[in-house]
């Protein structure tokens, strides 16, 4: 057997192994979502707790107005929630935009904290910690500055959180607001539904395991205090918080009926920067938490650590091997001699990939159609390949940060004016 044979074998085993894991999660996910879709998501509670909605915002004047108005429009009792927008070292007119909203809604608890480059400008975790210091809620809700949550989202999230004392947090679903803006946002929309929503649902259904996505979630204030706030070094503060909650013995629920719509990057450069930041954050969390993969008391979180490790190590290397062998094979520079190594294997993998994604679109309104199916195939050969570049870039950047002792920098996603 040649080196190409060994690498092919490795790639096949890794890709098919992860494919089956995803299929397994998708089946759990669809069962869970169908079950939840039979309900309205609400759980009656006697008294609604005080909620602090935190919105970290850095130069978000293009989108912040729409977000704050959506937050003010929640069907949650008006006197039981406050909104804290941390206008974090912004150089645009966010402060003026927020001031106008404040003046137009004098009876509402809308707090705007304008920070300078000394107090603020140090990333999302730092902004959240600032908001935490002035918050009065016993439940904290987090929304990104580009979100427009549906009016019932907060109530559903809080009701679910208060319904179970073992719950540390409840996360909702996020959808792509600008999905028709470009082909990239179409891909992001599909990816969001398939690999964030359905995957979350599957993990929750089978293992009561869920990862906070960074927005549209509620968490108990007491737990945040116990943790000492958000880890300012973490670029993926959401994943970091999730792991800490599980280590504390709580679990996180996924509630897909609490929906928020967010703006996704429309241009490749923006997308690449955002995803690199996410990947760097996940690598940081993976390295920091990998030791817990073998600690029993870490609970189901161990599975998530292993899953992250599989994706960022196994999947990445397998895809690199597979693509390299494919390209070298076309150039006639390498030849795989494995018996049975045929296009049938790749054909079946593509079929399962398409079906796996289609199943997630089938549960959504206006998402399941032939165009989407074609987009999924196109996505496999274009968008999915970019993921490899993102992770490699994030890996190199993380190493550089480590070698040169650089601090993690919050590389903000640029917003685009929507019509």
């Amino acid at each position, binding site marked *: 057997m040649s080196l190409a044979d*060994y690498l092919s074998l490795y790639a096949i085993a890794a890709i098919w192994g992860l494919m089956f894991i995803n*299929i397994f999660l998708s089946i759990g996910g669809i069962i869970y979502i169908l079950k939840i879709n039979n309900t309205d998501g609400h759980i009656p509670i006697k008294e609604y707790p005080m909620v602090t909605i935190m919105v970290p915002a850095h130069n978000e004047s293009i989108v912040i107005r729409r977000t704050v108005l959506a937050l003010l429009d929640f069907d949650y009792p008006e006197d039981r929630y406050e909104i804290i927008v941390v206008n974090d070292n912004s150089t645009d007119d966010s402060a003026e935009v927020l001031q106008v909203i404040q003046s137009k809604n004098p009876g509402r608890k809308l707090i705007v904290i304008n920070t300078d480059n000394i107090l603020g400008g140090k990333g999302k975790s730092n902004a959240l910690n600032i908001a935490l210091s002035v918050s009065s809620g016993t439940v904290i809700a987090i929304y990104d500055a580009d979100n427009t949550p549906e009016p019932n989202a907060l109530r559903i999230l809080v009701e679910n959180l208060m319904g179970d004392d073992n719950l540390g947090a409840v996360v909702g679903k996020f959808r792509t607001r600008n999905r028709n803006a470009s082909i990239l946002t179409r891909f992001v929309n599909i990816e969001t539904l398939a690999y964030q929503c359905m995957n979350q649902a599957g993990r929750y259904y089978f293992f009561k395991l869920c990862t906070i996505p960074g927005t549209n979630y509620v968490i108990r204030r007491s737990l945040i205090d116990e943790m000492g706030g958000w880890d300012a070094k973490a670029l993926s503060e959401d994943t970091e918080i999730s792991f800490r909650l599980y280590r504390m013995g709580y679990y996180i629920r996924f509630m897909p009926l609490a929906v928020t719509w967010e703006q996704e990057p429309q241009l490749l450069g923006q997308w690449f920067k955002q995803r690199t930041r996410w990947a760097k954050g996940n690598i940081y969390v993976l390295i920091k938490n990998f030791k817990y993969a073998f600690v029993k008391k870490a609970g189901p979180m161990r599975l998530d650590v292993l899953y992250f490790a599989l994706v960022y190590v196994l999947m990445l290397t397998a895809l690199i091997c597979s693509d390299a062998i494919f390209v070298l094979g076309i150039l006639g520079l390498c030849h795989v001699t494995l018996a049975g190594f045929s296009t049938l294997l790749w054909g079946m993998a593509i*079929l399962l990939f398409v079906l796996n994604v289609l199943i997630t679109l089938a*549960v959504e309104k206006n998402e*399941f159609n032939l165009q989407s199916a074609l987009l999924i195939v196109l996505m496999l050969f274009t968008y999915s390949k970019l993921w490899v570049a993102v992770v490699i870039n994030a890996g190199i950047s993380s190493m550089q940060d480590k070698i040169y002792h650089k601090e993690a920098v919050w590389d903000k996603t640029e917003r685009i004016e929507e019509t």
Partner: protein
Amino acid sequence: MMFKKAFFGIIILLIFFTPSTLVNAEENSGIPDGEILIIYSDGADEDALQAVQSIVEILTYQSFKVSFASASDSTEELDRFSNIICYQLEKYPKELLEKFQTLEETTSDTTKGRPKDFKHNILFMGNDCLKAYLDGSGRNDYLSDEMKIGKVTYNFSELTSKEELVEENFFLFLKDNLDYTSGKIETEDTEGYFCASKGNITHIPVSDLSDELVKAAFVKEVAAWKWPYNGEPNIYAQYIVLNQVYPFEDPDKLLKVINYLVEKKEPFVISVMPIYTNGTFPAMQQFCEILRYAQDNGGTIIMHCPINQMISFDKDLMNKYIRISLQIYMDQGVYPMGLQVPENWMLNDDTIDIMSHFSTIFTTNEEDQQIEAQMDSNTNLIYKDGHHWVSSSIRLDDTGVSYTKVSSTAVYLDMTEDIPILEYKIDVCQKSFVPLKSLWDIEHSFWTDEDLMKYSNQIIMINGERAERGFTPTEYDTNYKYDRNILNQFSKDLSSENQKLIIAVFIISIIFILFIFLSRHRNREKFFIKNENDEVEEDKKDGN
């Protein structure tokens, strides 16, 4: 003061000249002993050196120990050699001609016909040097023709005559009382010989060894020149070699050609390509079964050396590949008797070392691009290993049949050609004046790090144990398990795993499709299908 300057000047001159003199002396004494010395021009160009290599190879095939050096390096060494070939000498020290004269004077001519008992025999190939020599010694027993083009006619046997046009700067022919002549060269004005001897001087006027006819004629003439007795030198056979036979190829064609040879009762050789893995696959077993059938019916197997297996030449790796491949074949009852190599393997220390493991070597006209010829040894090192050499026949026609019988030759039949063409070539070989021979009639041996093979008196011994080469049909395992070597537990044949995978994919696809239908139905119920009761309730809510 003047004395001091002169003294230092002498010292400096001594320092300047002494080392180079010493180096020259070392180089001169560096020409190894040999039966034949080949002298070439000082500053000979690439083509001339290529021709010298070719002469060295030709003489190696004829089992002569050869030395070669430039004219300057050879001048003081001539006395040590009884047989000297002067190849296309154009630049040389003047002393060389004086030396030739001395050598001629020390010879004695007492026999009639082609004299054989000279102390020194000189073969001039080309005309410049011989003309200068004859002129310098005041002789005019030659014809000089300024024409540049001539037609060579040469008879390899009574019935086979070949013609070819050749080009030289001018032609020179010895005349008067020639002891020996052979072949013919005709120019527009003159008719002369291809080869002639007069006293201890033998002359071949043409020197272009890239011309196949000139090369073949030279092979014959040099053997006769070196033959110490009257009459023709010993006769060697030609071997029919089925070349470029790859494992796993469709064996039907190979079997048809073998059967044709068996029907004709002609001995033959099959040169198989090496194989490094999957030696027990049914296709390989079937291929080897045909080889065993051939072994049992007059056919002998040799193995081609590994090619295109490494980025740069690696002797150890090459030995390893050869060992693995030989083991695979021997495990299947196929016993290669020799190794087939590109011709330039004869001129490199590493490849010579590899070949030293085999007593029988077949060479081809291929060139291994990873091998560099090493001319600095000034001798055919390989001769000392005493191989049985079989060279590629010199192609004088489309069939490739051999026209020389002074050393063993191989007629390579390209197995990619159509069967009628192969059969035609076999027929031509059968009718050739050069006899065919079986490799089973001579002794062979090889050794690797793990195996020692010896063949003599129809008995093959592998590591001291007798191996049977008789043919028995094989029963194939129709349910063969394609287990891989190192990663047996992981790297099972994927095609059998694929069956399970297809079933799994089918089941998953069905489940997914069912879920898709269910989800769509639920969505439709939720967003589009309304029953009457729902509508009534909605109306109530709206207050209608």
